[in-house]
């Protein structure tokens, strides 16, 4: 193939799975590339990586494009399925791709319990603040007042702060970045992939088609500029009032602690059971 250079990450792309299905200007491409860079840098062998996809645009990041074992499951349940995969084979690196609706509306129960039990599953939650795939309905993460197809007079409800929710539920690695903060995003993904316990990485992503359009920023580059302008680090946010933070994206690492993960707890249980029966 003279004159044609392959992308260094192309080995992770399943043959015949293209063209992709994301809209022009979607943040999913940035997230896909950031993730594969992290996988490559950490050196996870392809046969050890399992991607579990939920329902929604985010699920289509790994499914079917990544050339690894991929389990594309029912709406809201990827973390539950991933828990079974990780308990079934602890040697696998199990990564969930889920959206804000998938993870915190229909699947909210699984999210908090996975964090609580510290199962060594890594969750990449693409938060575009709306249901993008189905045409732009309000999500649990949609800010108050935003008009969507199901809130034509503006959203009456308060949005979830997903990262803080997972911290409260016991997450041992929790970080939030946006699709603007690519270097930080890759670094956080690398970190998440090297942690043993439950890791939650919230990626605030731009959906120009179904979210940006509704808030008057239908251009993807403008949306990323908006992320840049509205983001404040956790450190800086500490000195700001709730009012000042109302329309900001607080980014950074919320927690990074070492707590025995569930597989390690099972190992201890197996050892104890063995001693007892010996």
């Amino acid at each position: 193939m003279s004159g044609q250079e392959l992308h260094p990450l192309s080995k992770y792309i399943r043959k015949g799975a293209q063209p992709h299905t994301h809209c022009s200007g979607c943040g999913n491409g940035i997230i896909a590339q950031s993730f594969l860079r992290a996988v490559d840098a950490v050196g996870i062998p392809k046969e050890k990586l399992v991607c579990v996809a939920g329902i929604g645009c985010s699920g289509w990041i790994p499914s079917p494009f990544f050339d690894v074992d991929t389990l594309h499951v029912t709406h809201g349940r990827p973390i539950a399925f991933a828990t079974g995969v990780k308990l079934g084979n602890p040697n696998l690196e199990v990564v969930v791709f889920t959206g804000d609706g998938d993870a915190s509306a229909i699947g909210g129960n699984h999210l908090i319990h996975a964090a609580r039990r510290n199962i060594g599953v890594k969750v990449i939650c693409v938060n575009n603040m709306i249901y993008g795939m189905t045409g732009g309905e309000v999500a649990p993460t949609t800010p108050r007042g935003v008009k969507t197809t199901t809130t034509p007079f503006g959203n009456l409800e308060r949005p979830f702060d997903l990262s803080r929710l997972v911290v409260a539920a016991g997450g041992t690695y929790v970080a939030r970045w946006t699709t603007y903060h690519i270097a930080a995003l890759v670094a956080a993904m690398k970190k998440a992939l090297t942690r043993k316990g439950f890791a939650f990485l919230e990626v605030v992503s731009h959906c120009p088609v179904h979210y940006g359009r509704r808030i008057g920023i239908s251009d993807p580059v403008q949306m990323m500029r908006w992320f840049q302008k509205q983001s404040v680090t956790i450190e800086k946010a500490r000195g700001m009032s709730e009012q000042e933070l109302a329309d900001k994206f607080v980014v950074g690492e919320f927690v990074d602690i070492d707590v025995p993960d569930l597989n390690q707890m099972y190992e201890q249980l197996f050892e104890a059971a063995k001693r007892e029966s010996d």
Partner: protein
Amino acid sequence: MSQLLPRTRGVYIQMEDEIAAIGSVIGASWTGLKAMTATSGPGFSLMQENIGYAVMTETPCVIVDVQRAGPSTGIVSAPMQGDVIQARHGSHGEYEIIALAPSSAQEMFDMTVRAFNLAEQYRTPVIVLADETVAHMREEVVIPEESSLTITNRRVPSSRDEASKAFLSASVAPMPVFGRGFAAHVTGSSHDEYGMRKASAPEAIDRIVRTINAKIAPHTREISTTEKTMLEDADTVLVAYGSCARSAEYVVKQARQKGLRVGLLRLMGIWPFPHEDVKEALKSARHVIVLENNLGQLFPEIERVAPESAETVFVPPEIIGTLHRPAYVLGQITREVS
């Protein structure tokens, strides 16, 4: 199980809800393990979507449903066979399922082993459709030596080449379990014969629906077995399954003592419904009496294959949610026969 599994490095986990329970079972199955979950009534309702996912993705797994009196929370500790149709058609879409009906504590053990074997053989979820009486009764159970058990294991491809073959052309394709370099793509969405999503081609879903039905239906006789008691000369045949079959067994003995020619056809597997077997067993019956602890969920299937010349009636217990009282059933038989 929570006590026994850790000794063999088996994982027992109590998930946050039944949706997660069946989800994690399916996930574990894809790592190559045998996995099961158990529930009753409401939990079985919650599991239905993911049971459909297991059917669609051809994931072997076992679900024990102990039927309670319902709908809804109903009565936890009363027997009813209200989930018979749900076991067959509980998830949306067109599919075939396997459901076994134990009627003793021994069969709770035997049929759970068999359920795993069938799940592995046909790459499909298998339901052990028990009922409250069977699950709560205490009676002798003989746990056989492991070496005397028949154990079936799923076929796994020998290479990625084999794994990437068109699997929908095989009756039961080998399962590309995770962690072995197969790069399996597993999806509950409509997919082509290579596993790639084909969400808008009717030809793709047509192929899947036909495949997942055709791998089970032709094997109905081997899957859904029956037990025939005193049928040779019987002019009256009781048809029953689960705990009802225990009452029926007793009724047959009593009826024989009275000189009535009564036999029992016990269904050990109810889905796929053993049409041919039941038809054969009933062919010389003059009276067919179907005992179920519901308002007749399996009755239409039985009525369909009963001989036209026979009188086919449905007899629920006097009070649904209790067992069939033998004297009551005997009275019904006497009334029918006379």
